[in-house]
Structures are given as C-alpha cells and as structure tokens.
C-alpha cells in the first residue's frame, strides 16, 4: 500500500453546469511517478490544479501529506508546479527566477546562491544565470522552470504537460532526464499528459482518465496487457478490437462469435450469450497460409507500412473490418492481395466487458 502522500476522496468539480471531475478517488504513493493520462477535456489538468490550489474542488477532500488542503492557498501548500508554458517571470533573469521561492521565504543570500548554483547544475543550465527568459530556447526554459520548482524541495512536484511544446527528439530526451531526476531526488511526481507513449515511458503508475473519471489505474505493463475497457485498450498503444458474443466459456477460455468469424480468447467471469470486446495487440497477431488448429479468420492483405523499426501490415477481414499486425521485419512471403489466415494465441488477447467503467 505504501504511504499516500496525496489523497483525493470523492472529489467533484463543476464549472458552471459542466461536470468536469466526477467522484474522483485517488491515492498517490510517496516517491512514485504517477501520470494522469487522457484526451483533452478529460479533467486531468483540472485535477492537477486542484492539488496545486489554483482551482477549488466543488466537493470532496484533498490531503497532502496527511493534511487537508482544500482551504489552503497555493502558497501555503508544500507542492510545486511546472507549468505548461513554463511561466518564467519575463522581467527576471534565470537566477532570479530560480531564486524566487527561497527569496520569498527569506533564505539568506549566500545560501540562496549555493542552492541556485546546485539546481542549475542539476538541470544542466549552469552559466545561464544572467540570461532573460526571452533569450532561451523552449528546452532551456523548461529546465529553468523545473529548477525553479525543485529548489523549494517540494515533497510533490506537479507537472502539467511540460514537454508539449518541444520537438520530438528533445521531448524524448527530456522524458528520460525527468525520469532520472525523479529517481535521483526521490520526489513524488504527478504528471499530466495526453501522450500515451510518454506516459508509458516515464510512469510507475498510470491513471487513464476520460470524461472526468479514472477508467483504470495501474502499472504501465498492467494497463497495456490487461486493459479493462475498450477505451483504454484503444487509447494505450494500438490494438485491434472485436465485438462479439460468448458462445462457450470453459477452463478460462472463451469462444466468441464475431462478425468476422469465430475467435478464442482467455477470459474469466463471462457467461455464454454475453456481449463483450476482444482486444489483441498488433504485435501478437500472426498470419499463415492455411487455417491453424485453434481458430483462423480469413483475410486479404491490404498494404504494408514501413515505419523504420517495425512494419505494419493491414489486412481486411471477411466483412471488411481492418486488422493490423506489426513485426520487426517484413514477412517477405506475403504480398499485397494475398489471401491468408489470421490468428493469435488466446492467452495474449484480452476479453473486455462491454460498457465497463472501473477504478
């Protein structure tokens, strides 16, 4: 269980008649890197801002380090934020920006100087003390913003899509740096993003959100291998999702009838006649020239997309539904227009209850 350093209980947020966050319950463990992941408008940023203190929860309780903070102003909370647009003070130098927090708390000048130098070195921005923010690149501003937040030794650092404005290569680099930083300093990071790859790379746990609700929370591998709703299966990584009805349920295996054919998947707790989704990741789909023993769906090869590391093959199934598979190398035996059979290991596919929303 660990110690919950941040605890949200039955938190609700309304903006006028807009129900933005619905009965949110979240326990964030100390020292973990938790990501709130979801599409725009799902309420992840609002949740973050409620923890920081820029929004008041309409109802519910928020605790940081065991203390109730709903009544506290942002400057009274022991959390710091890295903002989406960095929000560096334009009229102050890098040094003054980073020194701001300690300066407010009246830390002695030489102590401040020592800490600022330390922080800038930590984020690899040493020597930039006298620069003004408008003379910095996006990545540099980013790092100054992080230094400015971390110098206050917060127990919890909130990051609101901080890498959104950076180009791809820089973003990937920063993701690794941020993760390393978090490990090194052993601070709790609460991270908000809509980029699921980013979430998968950095997080200890991911909370997938949609429409103000957490659909699923867990380790990246858990969420990837065992998505509990169709949305999560779709949102995280790529997957092929089939709709169908259970025709047989025995020994942990389900036989499912779908418009594209009969498939087998592992799954528990389903009754025959029940509607469900079957999700299979592209990397687990296999094709062969002939029907295999467990099950096969007839398909026609549509096209290949070469993506550098992997090749994605698209195939059309019996009723025209598209299925994708990915491989590290193109299968040279298969050509466009070929008729083949598609199958997978039932242990690799996931059975998802229809219309399920869980926390």
């Amino acid at each position, binding site marked *: 269980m660990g110690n919950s350093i941040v605890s949200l209980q039955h938190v609700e947020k309304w903006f006028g008649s807009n129900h933005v966050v619905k009965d949110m319950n979240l326990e964030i463990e100390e020292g973990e890197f938790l990501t709130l992941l979801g599409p725009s408008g799902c309420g992840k940023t609002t949740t973050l801002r409620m923890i*920081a*203190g*820029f929004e008041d929860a309409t109802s519910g309780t928020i605790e940081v380090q065991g203390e109730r903070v709903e009544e506290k*102003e*942002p*400057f009274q909370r022991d*959390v*710091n*934020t890295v*903002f989406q*647009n960095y*929000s*560096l*003070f*334009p*009229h*102050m130098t890098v040094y003054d920006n980073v020194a*701001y*927090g300690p300066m*407010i*708390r009246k830390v002695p000048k030489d102590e401040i100087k020592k800490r600022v130098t330390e922080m800038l070195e930590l984020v690899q921005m*040493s*020597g*930039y*003390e*006298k*620069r*003004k923010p408008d*003379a910095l690149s996006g990545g540099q501003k980013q790092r100054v913003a992080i230094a*400015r*937040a971390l110098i*206050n030794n917060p127990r919890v650092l909130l990051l609101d899509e901080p890498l959104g404005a950076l180009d791809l290569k820089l973003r990937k680099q920063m993701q690794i740096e941020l993760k390393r930083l978090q490990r090194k300093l052993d601070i709790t990071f609460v991270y908000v993003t809509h980029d699921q790859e980013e979430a998968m790379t950095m997080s200890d746990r991911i909370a997938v959100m949609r429409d103000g609700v957490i659909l699923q929370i867990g380790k990246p591998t858990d969420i990837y291998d065992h998505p509990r709703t169709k949305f999560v299966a779709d949102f995280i990584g790529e997957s092929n999702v089939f709709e169908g009805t259970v025709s047989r349920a025995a020994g942990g295996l389900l036989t499912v009838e779908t418009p594209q054919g009969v498939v087998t998947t592992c799954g528990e707790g389903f009754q025959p006649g029940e509607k469900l989704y079957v999700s299979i990741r592209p990397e687990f789909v296999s094709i062969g020239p002939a029907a295999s023993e467990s099950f096969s769906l007839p398909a026609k090869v549509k096209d290949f997309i070469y993506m550098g590391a992997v090749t994605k093959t698209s195939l059309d199934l019996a009723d025209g539904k598209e299925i994708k598979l990915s491989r590290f190398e193109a299968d040279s035996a298969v050509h466009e227009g070929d008729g083949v059979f598609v199958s997978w290991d039932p242990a690799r596919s996931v059975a998802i209850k229809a219309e399920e929303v869980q926390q």
Partner: protein
Amino acid sequence: MKSTKSRKLRRQRSSRFWSGFYAVLIYTVFYIPVAVMIAFSFNDAPRNYYWQGFTTRWYAKLFSFANTDLWDALIYSLIIALLATAISVIIGVLGGIGLKKFEFRGKKFINMMIYVPIIVPEIVLAVAMLIIFITIGVKLGMGTILIGHCTFCIPYAVVTIKGRISGDNETLQEASMDLGANRRQTFWRVTVPSIMPGITSAAFLSFTLSIDDVVMSNMLSGATQSTLPVLILSMNRTGLTPDTNALTTVMIALLVIGLLTVNAFQRRRRKKDARLAAEAEMAISSAHGG
C-alpha cells in the same frame, strides 16, 4: 522571361518609392506647424503676426522669468499634470487589472462608462462637470481642474493597461503563488513589474493629455489661475508673444532629448545584459570543454 521579371521589379520598386514619398509628405504636414512654431520663436516682433527678423531675445526674456504670467501658468500646468498622472495611473492601472480579472455585477456598465470620456466630445464632459460643480456649490479651481483631467486620463490608462495584459499574466501570478508568494508579494514582485511597460505608457499618455488640455481646463478653472494652454488661448485674441513659442520650443526640445536618452539607456543596458550573459556562458563552456 527576363523582361517580365524586371518589369515586376520596377513596379515593386516604384510602388515602394511612391508609398515612401507619400509617407514623407504626411510627415511633412505633421511637422510643418512644429517647424513654423519653432521658427517664429526667433521672430523679432512684439507679437506673432509677421516675420520681422531673426532674434534670440525671446529666449533671453524667457529665461529671465520676466513674463510671470507665462511661468506661473507653466508651473501650474506641470503641477496639475503630475498630480493627474499620479492619480490616473494608480486608479487606472488597478482598475485595468481588476476589470480584466474579476467579474462582478455592473461590470458591463462600468466598462461602458470608461469609454465615455474617450469617445464623447470633451466639451460635453466639461460642461456636464461644470454644471454639477456650480450647482453643488463647489468652487472652481485647481481641484476641479484636477478632477476633470483625471476623468479623461483614467479611461486612457485603463485601456492601455488592458491592452498590455495578456492571459499570460494569470499564469505568472499562479507560478508566483505556487512558489510561496502570497497575493501582496505576487502583486508587487510579479504583476506590477511585468506590466511596467504598460504603466509607463499610461503615465506618459496621461501626462501628455493633461498638460495639453484646453477644453476641460478652460471650463473648470473659473476666474482663478490659468493653465498654460488656457493662457495661450486667451492670448490669441491679442496675438501671441514669441516667448510662448520659445517656451514650447524648449519644452519639446526637452521631451525629445529625454526620449532619446531613455532610448539610448535601454539599448546600452540590453547590450550589457547580453554581453554579461555571453561571457558567463563562455566561461562555463570553456571550464567544461576545456
């Protein structure tokens, strides 16, 4: 192919020439009265009607402070302008920030009211205030003039500030509070400095409007001391003396010099900042990279 290209170039160049020429023409129209005004400050005549020869005696007379009317009026105008600027900037800047940030009942109404002094002819405003002051029995004088000036300066200050505050300002304040500064500290350390250009703009605008104001000052001064513009207006009947030209020439000269100095200062400081920053970075990189 070549002929079309050169024809296009010629067309572009000629249009650029003519538009530049037009701009110069307009600037000339703006500056002609200024030039004439300066020229006539050297006019050797008791009153400014015709040119009667070159002299610098008016400047001598000006700086001998012999024309007490003129200097009294100038000092009076300056005092009023400074006070009006101070009041208008404080109320206007606070108002601009507040109106941008907060919602409250009657906000739309106040917003509309702010535009009234800007749009409505000044005479209407002046007359309205005059009527009220006299009816209530307030004595006309510096106080009423000051109130009048502030009434049209404040809206300009508000509008200037509102134009300079972007949504960014909100996040800067959040960042400040996130780092531990309370509202008061945030206001003085973050909000005000970041809109400083807007504040100086507003101050400058208010000062200019106040010191040049005729209508309001004329209506609301009663029989007391005149401001400089009012004095000039009354002198128009009998003809202006060239020392008023001298005075205005000196004023504008000071202004232009002041402007250039401030500009030069800013440029120098920016260069110094950039140089210091570059030096610091080079020191670090040579320490690391050797």
